[in-house]
Each structure stands twice: as structure tokens, then as C-alpha cells.
């Protein structure tokens, strides 16, 4: 058997990509075999996974899934797809982290923010001018589903406080703390440590301004508990949050969450 666009097909000796294209998707002009780009004369072997795509056409959710599967390899894709990640705060960090998580195909994202998109957000946050005034959760939902229609989203517009965090987030695999307020950052870590024993955590502290790239780092506090940032660059007048450095921190966080999901970094349990 071989897989062609995730459908099982009986394998015939001597089959090439060209034969599959003619039979299953004559318009296709991108070919992927076992996760690697291929040409039309590439021979196909029993057990291969072949993905045939037409450049420029909108893939179906199934085809999107096949593309990710091919690109990430099946083992990695399945782990990511079966994961649940919460993102608390949808500002410069959260909106960028959410984009990365959606693009790699995290199965379910919980998106939490009580606020609306404001003009002052647009120097770093991944929203558009025509979304000003929208609830951030809705605006981000629209944007993420345009990136990857296969993901599942749960939107939480509630104003969060320490006492109710565990009610919303106790069942996620990784909680990514992207709040602006240092008090909410501390409250979140306290709640994770005290009340969410199975939840891994990636938090943030210190990414304002335009300081060195390499002073942003990921630090393990204890197994499954990580903080990203330079630990001192506080957002304040004269040192605002700016897209480049917030983006560095956001993608440290996203990669750390991915590493936890894939088991290469320690998780809580």
C-alpha cells in the first residue's frame, strides 16, 4: 500500500509520481514523497506517503493536514495535532505565539484575552487596521483560521484572576503566559505550581526595547516550568515593546512549547 494525499492506494511495482499525478490529480505541480520534495520521475516504493498539490489553489483541511504531515513527519505531526495549548494574553507575545502554534498544527488552542484591538497595539501585535475595535479573541480567531483552517479554537473573553485560572486551564498540555501585567504573570505561575500539577508552563519576563537579541533566553525554573526573556527589560515610558524583540521572545516561547510537546524538554509529568 502507498498513501496518496492521505488515501490508501494499492501499490504497483514500477509506479512513478507521474503515474500518480495522471491518475489522482492531473493539475498537481508540487510533489512530496515521505516529507521531501520530489520530481515527476521519482519512483514510488511500497509504503511511501505521496502528497500531490496544485500550486496557488486553496487546499482542503485534509490536504492541509497532509502537507503538515509530510513536512513534519508523521510522528511529530501526530503529537502536535493531539496537543492542547493555552495562550493567556493576546498582545505582542500572545498573537505571535498563537500564529506559530496554528501554523504547525497544534490541535486545539485556548485563546484568552478580555480586551479589544487598539491602534496602539499595531506596532507589534498581529492584527490588522480593519480589526481595530474587535475583541482580540475574535480577531485572532479570524486570522489563525486563515493560516490553518484545521485547528480548533476555544475563546475565553473573561477577565482572569488567580483564583479562576485553574478552572479554565487545568487540562491543557502547555500553558503559555503572555500577559502584560507583572502581577498577572506572577499569579499565573503561582496558580500553575499550586493548582495545575500536570500543566507545563512557559512564561515571560523582560523583552521590551531593542536590546541585544541574545540576551533573550529560555530558563528552566524546575522540570516543565520555563521562563523566557532577559528578566529585566520592563515595558515603561522610553522603553516600549517593539515587534522585533517581542517577536524573538514569542518564538522562544513557541519553540519551547513545541519542544515540551515533542518530549525533548521535560514536562511536568
Amino acid at each position, binding site marked *: 500500500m502507498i498513501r496518496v494525499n492521505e488515501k490508501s492506494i494499492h501499490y504497483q511495482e514500477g509506479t512513478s509520481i507521474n503515474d500518480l499525478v495522471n491518475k489522482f490529480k492531473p493539475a498537481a505541480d508540487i510533489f512530496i514523497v515521505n516529507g521531501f520534495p520530489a520530481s515527476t520521475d521519482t519512483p514510488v516504493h511500497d509504503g511511501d506517503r505521496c502528497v500531490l498539490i496544485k500550486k496557488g489553489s486553496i487546499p482542503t483541511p485534509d490536504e492541509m493536514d497532509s502537507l503538515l504531515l509530510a513536512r513534519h513527519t508523521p510522528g511529530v505531526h501526530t503529537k502536535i495535532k493531539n496537543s492542547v495549548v493555552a495562550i493567556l494574553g493576546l498582545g505582542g507575545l500572545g498573537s505571535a505565539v498563537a500564529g506559530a502554534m496554528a501554523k504547525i498544527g497544534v490541535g486545539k488552542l485556548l485563546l484568552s484575552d478580555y480586551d479589544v484591538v487598539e491602534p496602539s497595539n499595531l506596532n507589534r501585535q498581529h492584527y490588522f487596521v480593519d480589526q481595530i475595535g474587535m475583541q482580540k479573541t475574535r480577531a485572532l480567531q479570524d486570522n489563525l483560521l486563515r493560516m490553518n483552517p484545521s485547528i480548533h479554537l476555544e475563546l475565553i473573553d473573561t477577565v482572569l484572576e488567580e483564583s479562576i485560572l485553574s478552572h479554565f486551564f487545568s487540562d491543557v498540555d502547555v500553558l503559555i503566559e503572555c500577559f502584560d501585567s507583572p*502581577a498577572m504573570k506572577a499569579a499565573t505561575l503561582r496558580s500553575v505550581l499550586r493548582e495545575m500539577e500536570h500543566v507545563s508552563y512557559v512564561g515571560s519576563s*523582560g*523583552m521590551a526595547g531593542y536590546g541585544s537579541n541574545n540576551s533573550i533566553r529560555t530558563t528552566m525554573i524546575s522540570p516543565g516550568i520555563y521562563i523566557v526573556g532577559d528578566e529585566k*527589560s*520592563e515595558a515603561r515610558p522610553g522603553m516600549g515593546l517593539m515587534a522585533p524583540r517581542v517577536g524573538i521572545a514569542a518564538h522562544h516561547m513557541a519553540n519551547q512549547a513545541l519542544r515540551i510537546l515533542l518530549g525533548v524538554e521535560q514536562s511536568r509529568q
Partner: protein
Amino acid sequence: MTITINGKNKTTQDTSTVATLLASLQLAPETVVIELNTKIILPDTYQSTTLSEGDQVEIIRFVGGG
């Protein structure tokens, strides 16, 4: 008395509480997570929690921005 803060020894007054320790370190209480002898301490007990010789205190500090 001597206590350990984030792995380093520090001499403090015998009457120190978590609150007075944070004040001496110029840390805003609401921006830190405090572990005292591996147990998380809640902010509403910072005033009443007294420190003893040999206590291990871990302070995780957050600055704003996100």
C-alpha cells in the same frame, strides 16, 4: 540570622518576614512568586510569614510587558 535566597546566603534581621525581606530587596510583592522551603507562599501571608535561620527562599521576579 542567615537564610538562602536563590542559592546565595544572605544575613537578615532575626525578625524578618517575607514582606520585610521583599521590601529590603526593593521588590514589589505582587510581581514575585515566593517559594519558602520548596512550598509556594501566598501573597496574603507575606506579612505574617516569619523567616527562620537556614530557610531556603526562592524568588521568581517578573517585569511587565507582553
